C-alpha cells in the first residue's frame, strides 16, 4: 500500500469514526441526562423539567384524592416544593411515557398515605426480543429497590441501563404529579 493511499485511508476512516461519534453523542447524552434527571429530581424538583428525549405527555393522576387533584394538573416544577405536605397523599398515579431507543417505558405508582406501596410497569422496552428479556429481568429488581428506597433515587441495574432510566424517570414524573 502506498503512502498516499495509507494516509487517505487513515484520514477518511478517522473522519467517518468522528462523524459516527458526533451523530451518536446526542443519544449517549440523552441517556446520561435521563439517568441524571431521574435520580436527582427528588432533591431539586426544578430539575425535573422534561429532557429532550422524553415525551411531553403531562403526568396525570388517575384517582386523585381531595386536595391533591388540582396540584396534579400542574407540574411540580411550577410550584414551590413545599406547597403540599407529602404525608397523607393517597392514590395511583401514572408516570409519563418515556421514549427510549428500545421502546417506551411507563410505570404507575400507588401511594397510600404518603408511602409508596406499589410500582407497576404499564409498558416496558419491547423493541426486540432481547429488550423484552432485559426489561422483564430488570423491572422486579427496580420495583423492590424503589419500594425500599421510597424514591426514584436508586442504583442503575447493570445491563438494563435504558430500562432503568425510563423506569425511574416515568416514576419520578408520577411522584411529581402526586406532589410526593
Amino acid at each position, binding site marked *: 500500500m502506498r503512502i498516499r493511499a495509507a494516509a487517505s485511508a*487513515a484520514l477518511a476512516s478517522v473522519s467517518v469514526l468522528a462523524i*459516527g461519534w458526533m*451523530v451518536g453523542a446526542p443519544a*449517549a447524552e440523552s441517556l446520561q441526562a435521563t439517568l441524571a434527571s431521574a435520580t436527582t429530581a427528588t432533591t431539586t424538583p426544578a430539575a425535573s423539567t422534561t429532557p429532550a428525549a422524553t415525551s411531553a405527555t403531562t403526568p396525570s393522576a388517575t384517582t386523585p384524592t381531595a386536595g391533591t387533584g388540582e396540584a396534579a394538573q400542574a407540574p411540580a416544577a411550577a410550584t414551590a416544593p413545599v406547597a403540599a405536605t407529602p404525608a397523607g397523599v393517597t392514590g395511583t398515579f401514572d408516570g409519563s411515557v418515556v421514549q427510549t431507543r428500545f421502546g417506551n417505558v411507563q410505570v404507575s405508582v400507588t401511594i397510600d398515605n404518603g408511602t409508596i406501596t406499589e410500582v407497576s410497569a404499564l409498558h416496558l422496552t419491547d423493541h*426486540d*426480543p432481547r429488550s423484552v428479556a432485559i426489561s422483564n429481568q430488570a423491572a422486579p429488581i427496580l420495583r423492590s429497590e424503589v419500594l425500599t428506597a421510597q424514591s426514584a433515587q436508586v442504583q442503575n441495574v*447493570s445491563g438494563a441501563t435504558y430500562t432503568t432510566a425510563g423506569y425511574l424517570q416515568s416514576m419520578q414524573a408520577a411522584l411529581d404529579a402526586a406532589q410526593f
Partner: protein
Amino acid sequence: MSFDTRVTQRPLRVAPTPRIRPEYKRRMRLADTLQVLCFVSVAVSIALFLGDGGAARFSTPADAITSLGVLTGLVGTDLLLVMMLLAARLPAIDRAFGHDSAMALHQSLGKPALYLILAHVVLLITGYSLAGKVTIFAEAWSMITQLPDMLLALAGLGLLILVVVTSLVIVRHRLPYEVWHIVHLLSYAAVLAALPHQLTSGSLLIAGSAQWYYWLALYTGVAGSILVFRFILPVVRSLRARLVVEGVDEVGDGVVSIRLSGRRLRRLKASSGQFFIWRFWTPGLWWQAHPFSLSAAPTGNSLRITVRALGDASAALPGLRRGTRVSFEGPYGLFTDRARTSPRLVLVAAGIGVAPIRSLLETATFLPGHATVILRAHTAEDSYLADELAALCQARGAELRIIAGKRPAGLNTWLPAKAVSARVSLKTLVPQLRESDVYICGPRRWTDEVVRDARSAGLPTRQIHFERFDW
C-alpha cells in the same frame, strides 16, 4: 460465423515511454481508491455503532464486553463482504490489482474474519451472561432458544468454519479442487444465513434506521456484484461468443494447443497474457472448470490456449473433438501489456508458463532489440512452444535465451547449477534490467525465486509482474 481474423491488439513500433506512465498512474489511482474504500467500510461499520450512541455503552464490564461483541460482529461481517467482493471478479478490482493479488488478499482476510465472528459470539454470550447474572452456558442456551433466527445464524457459523478449515493450506491440498470449490461456495449460504439474526435479534439494525439502510445496501450491493460478474456476465458472454474447439495440436509430451473459434470476440476486450476459466462441454469434462492462459494473441474470431494435461480429467483434453462447445469466465488478469511501466521488456518462462509469455511477446509494446525472452527448461528439448517463440523473437527483434539444466539440490535458485556457479543472475542476463518490465510465469516456487532475483537486482515492485497457475 464472422470473418474477422485481424488480431485485436497490434504491436506498436513507436517509442512506448510516454504512453505507459499515465496508464500506470491511472491504475494506481484506482488501486488507492479501492484500498481506501476497503478501510473506510471497516470504519463505517464501527461508526454505525457509534452513531447509535454506542460510545456511552462501555461504562460497566458487562456493557463494555457486549459493545465489543457488537463491534466484532459488524467488522467481521464487513470483512466477509469485502472478501466476497474480492472474489466476485469485479472488473475494477481486476484492472487495479489483477486476479492473483485480489485472491491473495481474499485468502489473507479469511482467518481474521472468522476470528472476529467467533469473538462476536463469545463476547456477546459473556456480556449478556454478566448482565443477566447467569452462567455462560445458561445464557448461550437461552439465546439460541429464545432469540429469533439464532439457529440459522449458528448454522451459518458452522458453514463459515467449514469453509475456512477446508481452505487451510494443509487441508486444501488433500482435497480435490471440485470438493473444495463446492464447500467454498457454501460461504454465500453462511453469510446469508447470518443476515436475519442481525436484523431481528440485534438492537442496532432497526428497520428504517440509517444503519439498517446502509447495511441492507451493503448486502445488496455485494450480492448484486456476485450475481452479475460471477454468474450472469460469464453466461451471457459464453452464449454470445459461441466458442467451439477448432482443433487440437500436439506441442510436446502431454502438452497441446487448443484452438477455439467463436464470433465477435473483440467485444471481450481480451489481451495477450490474460487467462479464462474454461469449461469444455463433453460428458467427462463439463463438471470441471480450468484456468488456462491465452498462448496466442486473441483475434476477432479465434482464441488459443496451450495446456499441459495433468492428472485427473484434464488428461482428456488432448482428445477434445472439433466442434466441442466451450463456455468460459473471463478474461481475467493483469499479466498484460497494460501493466507496463518501462520501455524495455524481459519475459521469463518455465514449463507450461510459456503460454502467456508467448502471447505477450506477440503483441507487447517494444522497439526491436528492447526485449529479451528467457526460457527455462530441464533439457534444451523439453521446452514447449520454443520454435514458435524463436520465430516470434526473430520477427519482432527480441533476443531469445534458452537456459537448460537441472536446479542444484538444496539451493534456492531459479537457475541451473552451472549458471549458479558462474554467478549468472537476471542482471547479468539482461544488462538493461533497470529499464525493463519483467514478466514471470512458471511453477510457484520457481516464480518466487525469479521474483526474489529481480528484487535483489533493485527492481521496484511496479516493474515485476508474475502470475501463478496453481489454485
